[in-house]
């Protein structure tokens, strides 16, 4: 009897935690982005408090990961402002957070936003992933640059030699 009572309490607590975990939702304004390496793009996450109590002390954090195990990703390179401390969210209130990201690697990536409480063990709510396809950088015209990078110093060199000879 005692054991079943404890189980009942555990179930109620689990249900309560589950309910509080679902009190927040995080959505993104788009599901995919196609861009070129080096370019910046912006997306908006919408954090909604669907519960009946005010949620305070929340932090939103941006994460980046590569689909390819061979590609190293340093999220700091993608965004220097990845952590946002959010104001209190009243019941049924939503908050829009804009993120600007620079694609610094080429390939397929996933970007998502996680929202968690600043203190305590509370649940982490994550957004669906934003799938980012980053195209390789097109190098500039390497053949066309040679006449320029060789020609200008050559012209100045000729002028310097000519001036020196005339000075003698």
């Amino acid at each position, binding site marked *: 009897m005692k054991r079943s009572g404890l189980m009942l309490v555990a179930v109620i607590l689990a249900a309560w935690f589950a309910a509080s975990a679902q009190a927040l939702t995080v959505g993104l304004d788009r599901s995919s982005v196609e861009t070129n390496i080096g370019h910046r793009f912006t997306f908006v996450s919408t954090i909604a408090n669907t519960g009946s109590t005010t949620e305070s002390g929340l932090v939103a954090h941006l994460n980046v990961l590569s689909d390819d195990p061979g590609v190293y990703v340093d999220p700091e390179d993608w965004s220097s402002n990845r952590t946002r401390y959010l104001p209190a969210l009243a019941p049924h209130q939503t908050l829009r957070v804009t993120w600007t990201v*620079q694609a610094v690697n080429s390939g397929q990536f996933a970007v998502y936003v996680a929202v968690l409480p600043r203190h305590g063990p509370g649940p982490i709510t994550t957004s669906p992933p934003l799938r980012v396809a980053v195209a390789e950088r097109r190098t500039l015209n390497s053949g066309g640059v040679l006449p320029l990078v060789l020609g200008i110093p050559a012209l100045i060199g000729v002028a310097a030699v000519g001036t020196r000879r005339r000075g003698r």
Partner: protein
Amino acid sequence: MTTIALSPPRRAWLIVAGQELRDLWLGGRGLALTLAFSLLLSVMTYLTATNSVLNFLEQRESVNLTLQVAVAVGALLVLLGAADALSGERERGTLESLLLAPVHRLELVVGKGIAALSLWLVAFAVSIPYIWFLGRGVGLVGTALGAGFLVGSLLALFLAGLGLLLSSVAGSNRVSLSVALFLLFAFFAPTQLPSGAQQGWAGDLFIRIDPFSSGLHWLGKVVVDAHSFSQDASWLASPVVAAGLALLGALGAARFLALRGGGQ
């Protein structure tokens, strides 16, 4: 008995500037410095245009990097010219004849300053084709060149004033040049702190105080982030103030220009 009064010619600074420009550009020193400058820009441009592994991510950043190097090194050439202007004459023993010439000392310094500034103007002209090559196709060339000329001119004026000020009081080229470079590095050092240490008001202040860092920061905002010239204009306060103070200091020190260094 006839008395001949040697009065200074009108616009003597133009005569001094003309003579100094001839010495600098026909003597070969200016062209040698420009050749070294163009070689540096050639290497930079070749790497940014061809090497996809380098972290030069997009065309705007390539333009910005090359432009920043052109502006910074072009302005440093002015420092080399200005730091040599008076202490060099002193070191070579030719300052005495200059001081005896019927020219106000102020005009002497102005003429030498103009010659030093010509190094920046020529460096900027040399950098135009490189910036054009990297920035064509993205409508960036005019903006980049305009912003680069503005920042580079402010920095060149600052370094010309600083170089002339130090050169007028230093006994030798070595002293004036080393003190000028030391001051530049002292300004620049805080900007090399880890990015975490640059956050907050102290880090922001360090970058804003240093004319080089703040000027180049503004340049990056215009070229990379496509901001308008006026959007981050407060970042130009430091180069403007530094240029004004350095030029005033140089002109003030010109009044006390003496045969020996240290005002002796």
